[in-house]
């Protein structure tokens, strides 16, 4: 079962520290491949903490791990992930004459892997 949600990529401290160390090392890779999901959404979609999920936008698809966030912290239907090469794959090319495609409001289909 896939559900359409809004993905917000953003900065985190872990991603920042990882990026200083190296974009090719574990800390950065883990930080940028873990998506936060509302726990209620997780339950509905049958997702487990640390389980793999697929996110598909009109422009690309990535597979990452998921982690739960309390409903009052992250509203249903919203996903959060640290910026990184994976999120770039989901961005479109159209900038609407603004210089940057939407990078913090990505419509994605979220789906459990396996």
């Amino acid at each position: 079962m896939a559900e359409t949600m809004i993905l917000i990529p953003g900065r985190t401290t872990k991603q920042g520290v990882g990026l200083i160390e190296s974009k090719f090392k574990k800390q950065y890779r883990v930080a940028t491949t873990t998506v936060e999901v509302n726990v209620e959404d997780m339950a509905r979609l049958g997702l487990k903490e640390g389980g793999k999920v697929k996110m598909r936008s009109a422009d690309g698809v990535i597979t990452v791990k998921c982690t739960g966030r309390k409903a009052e912290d992250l509203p249903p239907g919203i996903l959060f992930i640290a910026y990184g090469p994976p999120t770039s794959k989901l961005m479109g090319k159209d900038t609407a004459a603004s210089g940057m495609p939407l990078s913090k409001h990505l419509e994605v289909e979220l789906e459990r892997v396996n």
Partner: protein
Amino acid sequence: MSAATETKTEANTKTVENATCTFCGCLCDDMVLTVDVDAHKITKAKNACVLGKALFLSHEEEDRPFALIDGKPATLKEGVEEAAQILTNARFPMFYGMSDTTCEAQRQNVALVDMVGGTIDSTTSVCHGPTGMALQGVGESTATLGEIKNRADLVIYWGGNPAESLPRHFARYAVTAKGMYTPRRKKDRTIVNVDVRRTKSTPVADIFIQVKIGADFELLWALRALVKGRKVAPDIEKRTGVSLETMQDLVERMKNCRYGVLFFGMGLSMTRGRHFNAAAILSLASDLNEYTHFIATPMRGHGNVSGADMVVSWQTGYPFAVNFSRGYPKFNPGEFTATDMFARGDADAGLILAADPGSNFSQYAIDHMKKIPMIVLDPKLTHTAKLAKVAITTSHYGINTGGTAYRSDGVPIELRPCLESKYPSDEEVIRAIYKRVEQLLKAKKKTKSANNKRRKAA
């Protein structure tokens, strides 16, 4: 750098005081760095936050070749020569980056792009470029951070998470900082956080307002209407997730504070509405000046991204997305911005200075970068360096190289490097490329005019 601030404590260590951390836009200039001279390492970074500590303490000069051409090690001279050849032969080269380097390097970079008739854009376009465009539509009311520290009694964080991206923002500037008219720190301030989700910044707020995703503009617009004493549609709560009472309460607080500030992040500038979201928050602050003193200011990520704005503006008149194809500057975001030029397939070469679009641009843009000759200057191996034809290793600004960086509020700071590097600075490399391109272009011009003469004679 004055000698007084650099003291040798023991035989093999030295201390550099008042050094500046260049990781984020806070540009904290109160670092006390202890350097183990023999080990060529920074061993202590007093006053640094978690990001700053990582920056200084994990700094290690990788033993990389001075240059890579097609992935193979090369000398600096060979790298410069190859870069110069690429730029001389390009018709529509794109210069991008500049957020993690000094203004001195940025100035040379604009000189180079001016000479080759290319296009220049900075990482501004992927963070607060829309805010720059909003400024061009509606203006802004802003301040340096010290004025906020001294005076602000109402601080609103909107669509940003400084606790994670600018860790010392609260303590140095806006929440727990002690100022002239805010001696009791947080007690003298009301902190509001507006966001679509709870973040690590939310706990510092006295008031948290959770706005529905994608409804920031509507909320800002409704607040503007209320400030102006106009009505808003009754379904506003349904639209924004925020009740009219909450809005009215916020409006009263904003109108009645002594000095109010709206800090905003990419939650506004990079979500649907972009420059209009930014224009809405800038306008809200301006509107409020009918009642009290109010300012709005973006929170900016990279160390010297503001410097890139500054330099490009003073040299060309425009802040970013500037094209020189016709021998003079032309500005048009969407046309001359880097992601557009790469994703559309317009650029036929690229020079990336201190940025990594290979990891944060869209796949469309990255795919095009792989097709054209790219030149990269960076201290580290990056995704962009991996796809580049020429990758030149440079020293790290702020750690190895001195120069100027602008804080996000426009305050310029002179950097105090603490470690020497065997690698050249960005400025030196750009200068070298400039010199070589200048020679090549003169030669090209000569051949061209000779050819023309020959053609005419024939």
